[in-house]
């Protein structure tokens, strides 16, 4: 059963990250995902200090708020003339540092391990079960991640067309009356929520890998957004399964292995993708060259 819950946790992280990651990659906002995943740390700590427990709903809320503040600050700085990459760098490192200080200040009173926040420990998820509606054998992480996945399904499902047009042509979307800013912050809110829901299992840092790498891989394999999202999710789940078994085999970090597998799959797609791959491009060029030499 241990195997099952660990893989289930990884797969749920993969599903939520895979869906949201597609929109981040297409909007060229991969680094915003990175920024959010770091800067939610003070939100997690403050929620922890206030609620006095690792009550995950409070953390989910606290961190989502800080995630939105991050995006808001980055935008304010950009609009007042700071370079885009610099403003991302300033905001997330500064907020992350505040989080580190808060953790160290409270280390004695509270049981919040920095390593655990940053790297997670998916191997222990099955020990931490809660009783919901009389069902007591499902781990807490699976409940929280399942809830997150459900929210993402509902929001993206209802507003798919808005998210799509905002990603492709925000100016046109705005001109025809779609509240672009609202959907921007909605997406960012979902990313924050996913980051926090995942931090106990894969950690705040590796969640970035699950957000970006499967989506970037899927991008290389298809030319339709809906298919890209499905591929991204499937690739993420594959990473969770393969990552778990190779970690078990090597006796290595499970979360680390999951993202390593994601990286390897990306390289494979980069080389062998029939549409965008390096090999396909080389063959096409070779054919063109041959055609050219025959003509001249």
């Amino acid at each position, binding site marked *: 059963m241990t195997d099952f819950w660990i893989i289930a946790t990884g797969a749920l992280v993969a599903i939520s990250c895979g869906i949201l990651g597609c929109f981040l990659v*297409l909007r060229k906002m991969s680094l915003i995902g990175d920024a959010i995943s770091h800067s939610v740390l003070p939100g997690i700590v403050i929620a922890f200090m206030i609620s006095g427990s690792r009550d995950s709903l409070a953390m989910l809320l606290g961190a989502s708020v800080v995630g939105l503040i991050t995006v808001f600050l980055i935008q304010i700085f950009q609009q007042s003339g700071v370079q885009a990459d610099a403003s991302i760098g300033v905001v997330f490192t500064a907020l992350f540092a505040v989080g580190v200080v808060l953790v160290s200040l409270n280390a004695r009173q509270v049981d919040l391990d920095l390593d655990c926040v940053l790297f997670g420990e998916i191997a222990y998820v099955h020990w931490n079960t809660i009783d919901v509606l009389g069902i007591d054998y499902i781990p807490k992480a699976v409940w929280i991640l399942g809830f997150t996945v459900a929210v993402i399904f509902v929001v993206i499902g209802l507003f798919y*067309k808005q998210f*799509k*047009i905002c*990603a492709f042509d925000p100016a*046109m979307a705005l*001109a025809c009356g779609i509240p672009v800013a609202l959907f921007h912050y909605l997406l960012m809110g979902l990313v924050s929520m996913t980051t926090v829901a995942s931090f106990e299992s894969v950690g705040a840092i590796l969640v970035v890998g699950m957000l970006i790498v499967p989506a970037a891989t899927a991008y290389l394999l298809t*030319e339709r*957004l809906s298919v890209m999202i499905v591929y991204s999710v499937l690739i993420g789940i594959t990473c969770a399964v393969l990552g778990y078994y190779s970690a078990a085999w090597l006796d290595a970090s499970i979360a680390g292995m999951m993202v390593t597998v994601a990286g390897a799959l990306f390289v494979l797609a980069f080389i062998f993708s029939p549409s965008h791959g390096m090999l396909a491009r080389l063959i096409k060029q070779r054919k063109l060259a041959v055609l050219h030499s025959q003509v001249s």
Partner: protein
Amino acid sequence: MKQTRHASPLTVTGLTVAYQKKPVLRNLTFDVPEGKLIGIIGPNGAGKSTMIKAILGLLPKVSGEVQIYGKPYAEMRKLIGYVPQRESVDWDFPTNALDVVMMGRYGHLGWFKRPGANEREIALDCLNKVGMADYAHRQISQLSGGQQQRVFLARALAQNADLYFMDEPFVGVDAMTEKAIISLLNELKAQGKTVLVVHHDLATVKEYFDWVMLLNVELIANGPTELVFTKSLLHETYGGKLAVFDQEDGATLVGAR
């Protein structure tokens, strides 16, 4: 809606736009007549695109008011079609031509309705009008610049608007596409629609547009082409940058930038 039609399709009052404190558009006040092809002409940096974006609410205004058929812009959005500059979007986006054209219907669908068979039919029809029906399922990155521009135009048609804003639709397109666009614009005009086009090529202004706005931070002139597109007003608009000039008044113009 009919009773509002006596009002001008677009009335702008005291529009000022600034980037960091430096004004890019100063106190523009004008209205445009219905059912005309209107060329917005001016040198680089004159604020032509900025004006369109400010009217559409894509850029913050320092001051000014925009009315569409006599009503505030926000209430009339469904009557407006917008064709942004082609470079403003990522053409590697995973989607096909038909899908992009269907986006023209999203504004009409409201919050929750999904695009369906009806939208698909409209989109195919619009692609057909720009001569792109054969490319409906082509991935957009595989289209040439001219074809991409025609897809954008088809999307604007799908919006079924009464007032169109087009930002440099003729830039970087082949001769065939330019002809296709111009015949489409004339068709829109014949249907009584109003089209504002940001335009660069002074050589074709007289041929394409029956109304011209000359713009260089301030509005220099706004009126029928034969009255406004004259040597002296162009000189005022372009300053010393206008190179070669006419035989008769405002006739042959070459190399204006």
